[in-house]
């Protein structure tokens, strides 16, 4: 499958994520993120691990500005996110697909309506309201729902689905955006181990097909090692590890999470 963004120059910038010295203080003087920097260029799966409350979710939400970063530079696909506002910010967000821990579906809408939510950023309000999406978007939505294995549930209401099925809808919604970057915030935390693996496989597959970077916050170190090309370890608002899964040693885990008993 071809990606519309693969031709022409600037191929690398389109699928890149540059984060430089990002600081976030919810309360002045008490930063949660204390100067985070890393780059992701081209297709790769990056897992961010770290204890709860260390700012992983905050970091992802700073990237698409659901949360305002206090300082720092965030460049997604060539757009400097921190400088955008209004319509341009919405347009930039449209190119960042996001998958949520608790799926964040609209419970009372059907699967396909939820998937088409991914197109709200590029669909005029009246069209969205009357459900008059362009036929190509509708075809694409059907195709994605088929791909995530929910072909029989197209018109089922989201609240009638199981957790794993809901997350599949969430992924289809994110991919529907034709994103330049896919982010997933603890996508498997609400799921059983088997479903978690399936969801990770699905995310990796879409990231490969779309040829875009995949950034995943994850608690499960083993899943991270199994599916990621690169692991970033965060602790107390700093990046304390950045390397391949093979390089991640017990000593690193001790540094990230503290203590040793849990490793036994």
């Amino acid at each position, binding site marked *: 499958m071809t990606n519309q963004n693969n031709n022409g120059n600037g191929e690398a910038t389109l699928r890149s994520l540059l984060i430089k010295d990002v600081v976030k203080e919810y309360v002045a003087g008490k930063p949660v993120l204390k100067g985070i920097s890393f780059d992701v260029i081209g297709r790769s799966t990056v897992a961010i691990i770290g204890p709860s409350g260390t700012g992983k979710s905050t970091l992802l939400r700073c990237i698409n500005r659901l949360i305002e970063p206090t300082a720092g530079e965030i460049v997604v696909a060539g757009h400097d996110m921190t400088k955008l506002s209004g319509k341009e910010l919405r347009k930039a967000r449209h190119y960042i697909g996001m998958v949520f821990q608790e799926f964040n579906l*609209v419970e009372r809408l059907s699967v396909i309506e939820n998937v088409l939510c991914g197109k709200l950023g590029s669909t005029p309000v009246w069209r969205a309201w009357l459900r008059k999406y362009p036929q190509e978007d509708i075809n694409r939505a059907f195709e994605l729902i088929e791909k995530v294995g929910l072909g029989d549930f197209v018109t089922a209401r989201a609240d009638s689905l199981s957790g794993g099925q809901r997350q599949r809808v969430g992924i289809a919604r994110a991919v529907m955006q034709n994103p330049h970057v896919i982010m997933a915030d603890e996508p498997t935390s609400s799921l059983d181990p088997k479903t978690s693996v399936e969801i990770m496989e699905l995310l990796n597959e879409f990231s490969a097909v779309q040829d875009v970077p995949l950034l995943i916050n994850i608690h499960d170190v083993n899943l991270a090692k199994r599916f990621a090309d690169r692991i970033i370890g965060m602790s107390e608002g700093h990046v304390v590890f950045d390397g391949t899964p093979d390089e991640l040693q017990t000593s690193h885990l001790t540094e990230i999470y503290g203590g040793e008993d849990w490793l036994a």
Partner: protein
Amino acid sequence: MTARSVNTRRPFKPNWLARFGWLLILVYATYAISALDISWPRFVAGLGNGAKFIGELFPPNFERWKLLVENLLETVEIAVIASAFGVLFSLPIGLLAARNLMPPWASWPARAVICVCRSFHPVIFAILFVKAVGFGPMAGILTLIFASIGFIGKLFAEAIEEISLKPVEACKAAGAPFMSVLIYAVMPQVLNRFIGFATYQFDANMRNSTMVGIVGAGGIGGTLFAAFQRYDYDFLCAILLSIIGLIMISEFLAVRIKRVFND
């Protein structure tokens, strides 16, 4: 720690302030009963008068049914028009008043409007509007529009404040404009309850529209008041019975409407 000190630890502390409060209420109630001249003999005498009055109500007199039907239709018209416009206006006002979606500079004025609409009983609004636009159904319609805004606006704002913000976050993350966020992430969560409020208010408007006529704001209330003052108790009974019938019909309709929209 000795056994004795364990015994003296009390899990339920007496709340002396609350006890004093209850005592105060009791004392005030006793005083108010004596001050307002509420006494048993008066109550017993009242029972007798009431029985005599009820006796005169029957049999009901439907001879002037033309006037009755005409008045009932006007009452229904007032209720329908007022409900339609009340719902229409309370939607944006309720939305503006929701503090989880709107900035304070938008929600406070909207809350003030709702508060003013709620602070007066419909009868007071009716008196004001009869002064402003003269006798007739116009005053009644305006009255009930304001009553509807106060009621639905407030409940609608509260319903929006209780929604889950998760889908809102997801739609924002997809770059959806504000209106699309409302249509996709907010509306589906509140539509059901909104239909419930609207039908309930329609029901309330129906009842209130029988009453605004008493101060001259149109509908069957005027005729009812006149019949009462002329000691036309049998006609009064006919009016009351038809009001009961009307309310029962509207309640039946409200239930049906809700069933259509629920789920």
